[in-house]
């Protein structure tokens, strides 16, 4: 750990990517649990696809990329929220339309901006060379705010997850909690692009959470384990990415899927029994 804190080392691109990935995994853990509890995996995916549109618009209007991604994701979330109430179309079709519409518009806008050279592969699949000191600061700030907000809204968000009506009846304002949750997801997506890329962000949310499920006996435990699994996947994936010269996003996803498969074996059951005994 001392080595990591060494200022000279933070200059190293790999350590920066590692720190960024760990920060990302720590916040993706608990949020990912909510995503699978609420059956919102496809929702997360739609927002992630929208991130590319955010980047395109950010480049076009010369905005901070994280900020424009966050804004576009929020806009898509609100659109979904409103359309789901009115439209007669099913919500998974709606998600599919919005996901691919925003991805396609994003790609078209990027290709029209001939004066900007964009590393499309990097945007879609992540690029560990891209993490700057400034990105690290943004991830650290996001990690702190996401954790704090989650801590404060935890009870109403969790109650709304179990039963929206129960939460509403007992005065917990589930709708407010759900809007806050969407904003949290949007901010995680905004900071995750450089590490895992647009197409694979949701896997960072759901695979560690699904892995943790088989080992945990309570919601809090599952969120913690999910973060730990995510951190392991990031360390394994980025190391593999560096040594094998593979794109960072897919490498992290392969690592987390490996951990997930491991959780299907009887060993995970043993871990659960140990955790129960505590």
């Amino acid at each position, binding site marked *: 750990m001392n080595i990591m804190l060494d200022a000279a080392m933070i200059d190293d691109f790999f350590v920066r990517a590692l720190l960024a990935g760990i920060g990302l995994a720590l916040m993706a853990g608990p949020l990912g649990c909510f995503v699978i*509890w609420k059956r919102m995996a496809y929702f997360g995916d739609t927002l992630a696809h929208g991130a590319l549109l955010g980047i395109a618009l950010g480049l076009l209007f010369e905005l901070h990329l994280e900020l424009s991604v966050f804004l576009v994701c929020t806009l898509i979330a609100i659109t979904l929220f409103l359309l789901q109430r009115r439209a007669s179309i099913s919500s998974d079709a709606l998600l599919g339309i919005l996901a691919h519409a925003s991805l396609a518009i994003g790609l078209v806008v990027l290709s029209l901006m001939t004066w900007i050279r964009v590393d499309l592969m990097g945007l879609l699949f992540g690029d560990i060379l891209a993490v700057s000191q400034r990105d690290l600061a943004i991830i650290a700030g996001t990690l702190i705010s996401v954790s704090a907000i989650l801590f404060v809204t935890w009870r109403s968000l969790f109650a709304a997850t*179990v039963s929206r009506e129960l939460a509403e009846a*007992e005065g917990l304002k589930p709708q407010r909690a759900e809007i806050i949750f969407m904003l949290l997801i949007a901010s995680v997506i905004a900071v995750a692009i450089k590490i895992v890329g647009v197409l694979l962000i949701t896997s960072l949310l759901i695979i560690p959470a699904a892995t943790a499920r088989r080992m945990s006996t309570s919601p809090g435990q599952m969120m913690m384990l999910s973060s730990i699994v995510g951190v392991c996947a990031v360390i394994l994936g980025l190391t593999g990415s560096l040594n094998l010269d593979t794109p960072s996003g897919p490498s992290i996803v392969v690592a987390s899927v490996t951990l997930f498969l491991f959780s299907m074996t009887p060993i995970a059951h043993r871990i659960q029994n140990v955790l129960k005994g505590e």
Partner: protein
Amino acid sequence: MSQKELIRLTNAGYQTTDRWLVRDVSLTVNQGEIVTLIGPNGSGKSTTAKMALGILKPTSGEAFCARGLKVSYVPQKLMIDWTLPLDVDHFFRLTSKPSIQAQHRAIEATGIGHLLNQELRSLSGGEFQRVLIARAIAREPDLLVLDEPVQGVDFSGENELYQLIGAIRDDLNCGILMISHDLHVVMAKTDQVICLNGHVCCSGTPVSVSQTDEFQALFGLRGHADIALYQHHHDHQHTADGSIAHEHHAGCSHD
């Protein structure tokens, strides 16, 4: 003892895009009072309860709720996803952390002590129902709303739960709004029965089971001090599709 008004619906109705689920319902639940809603499937019982709870905003009429009212709700259905590891003990702390004594009393009263470390998903229908009720009363609410609380519970368990609900009212002096799955059998301690079928068909007080011979003949095995019979006095009839049939009487000029 002053009877504080807890919730009140005044001519409340709820309309979805294509139809009215329920119309013109007026009801009041006072402190220490048990109100039972009965009616066939799709008659708007749950919708009425949800309007009273503030989950649904009435499309017409008004819903009033006393300030700072502490509500506990036992919903009709609660699906727990496989991905959610939630045991009974954690479930008690879902919307608020009950005091240790209150939680203890609720566990004892519902007899679910042996289930505390079980995951909710692994419970049987009857056990789950008891856990839902236990969680609701551990909050020590001012108003308890129960949507078909005895569903999936066997006959003796049903009597026991009615006894328990009566005891809760006496202990906490709370108001209780209960939806019954049975059209004719209600809890004996009910102060008021409201029969719904898209609107209020009739309302009144139940007749104690022990007072009606025909009921005892019919349901002799179930005859118990905790359940009662409710006699309907409708001034109209419903056709099979639920619409109100016009009754022909002497003054009718058409055929």
